[in-house]
């Protein structure tokens, strides 16, 4: 079943890219190279329901996030991570993310953007998997580059990043022999489905997204590859609702909860400062 979805997904992705290029790049599982407008503020709540293989239970995770467009080139995110793993809802970690626009080439209804990003994360959970996840499970930092091409109703984006994990405090150390460095890579595409023609800001926008997200552990040469389709609604050109499903296509590393559903609400405040 998953294989079939994956094959169809890749075909759709390729079809979109090679076919009638006409999106949307407000990706659900990754960040595009584009920044949010200067002086604007975004509020985001991402709710994840992940299937935890170790306990055969559904794990609820909440990621609240504040995003700030400092100027046209720089945006900053601050986020937290909460989970009900181990039976009670508790805070596990948090982090900061910054993205800087390096290059922009704009045309009517199209653009290419290149951005550099960095992330710093703190986490106090037990390290229970090989996957390095700076949002949920690891203390550390990430540095990377993102390139995004928008062509009318279609967007495609690619990102690559280096991750360095550290012990989660003195109590929760990285197990001996486990890799603490990884390369992440992703490719994402999105397409505007509705409206066919814009007439006002109250029209609901519908976007379809498909993303491939992978990781390579540098010391042990283990890999995973996930696929993540999503549907996105934008209401009044200001409020976003994302519903996505992420699942593992391939992995030779130990991961606790790679599969799950994500529901996110995001609200953008223009000219907040």
């Amino acid at each position: 079943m998953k294989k079939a979805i994956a094959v169809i997904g890749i075909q759709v992705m390729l079809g979109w890219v090679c076919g009638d290029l006409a999106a949307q790049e407000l990706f659900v599982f990754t960040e595009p190279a584009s920044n949010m407008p200067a002086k604007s503020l975004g509020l985001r709540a991402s709710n994840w329901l992940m299937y935890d293989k170790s306990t055969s239970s559904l794990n609820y995770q909440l990621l609240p996030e504040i995003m700030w467009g400092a100027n046209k080139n720089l945006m900053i995110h601050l986020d937290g991570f909460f989970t009900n793993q181990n039976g009670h809802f508790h805070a596990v970690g948090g982090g900061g993310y910054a993205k800087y626009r390096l290059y922009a080439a704009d045309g009517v209804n199209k653009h290419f953007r290149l951005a550099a990003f960095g992330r710093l994360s703190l986490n106090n959970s037990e390290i229970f998997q090989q996957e390095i996840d700076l949002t949920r499970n690891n203390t550390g930092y990430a540095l990377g580059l993102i390139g995004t091409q928008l062509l009318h109703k279609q967007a495609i984006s690619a990102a690559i990043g280096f991750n360095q994990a550290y012990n989660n405090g003195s109590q929760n150390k990285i197990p001996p022999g486990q890799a603490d460095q990884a390369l992440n890579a992703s490719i994402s595409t999105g397409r505007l489905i509705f409206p066919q023609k814009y007439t006002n800001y109250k029209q609901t926008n519908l976007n379809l997204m498909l993303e491939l997200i992978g990781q390579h552990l540098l010391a042990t040469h283990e890999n995973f590859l996930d696929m993540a389709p999503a549907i996105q609604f934008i209401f009044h050109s200001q409020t976003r609702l994302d519903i996505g499903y992420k699942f593992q296509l391939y992995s030779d590393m130990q991961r606790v909860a790679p599969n799950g559903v994500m529901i996110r609400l995001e609200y953008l405040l223009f000219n907040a400062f």
Partner: protein
Amino acid sequence: MKSLYLLWTVLLTSTLSFGQIQSVSIQASGLTCSMCSRAIYKALEKVPNVSNVEEDIEHTSYHIQFKDPAVVSLENLKKAVTDAGFSVAWMEVNANFQNVEVAPDSSLRLNNLIFQFVDIHKQNLLGKKKLLVVDRDYLSDKDRKKYGASYQSMPAAEGNGRIFHVTIRQS
């Protein structure tokens, strides 16, 4: 009283003879989605002295009117678009003229701004005209190439403040 009336008449005539800026139209580039378009719309609305912004989301263009047309800032409008994260594809100044003669390289003051004409033939401007700003960051690089060479070598026009290079766009 008579001299005051005369002064008023002279002032009025001289102003009208140059023409008046009525509004500015902008097309933004680098976006498709309505969220992006709304970010620009909100930024333009916030520019001091702007009274009204009409949007055409499909064509990512905006029509801007002013509370006081005597103090129009094209720089502030351009900055609103670029701070939202996008670029100006073109900017047009919509002005009303009362029989003003213009020629290649000639300059004139409209409201608080000085314009120098490029790529035009000698003519009398009468009624509503669209002046396309051809300076860097006000027009896409691709379109600027049509005008770039012709004005970059020209001497600066006389007058205080920044000079905007414009051409007359056919309505």
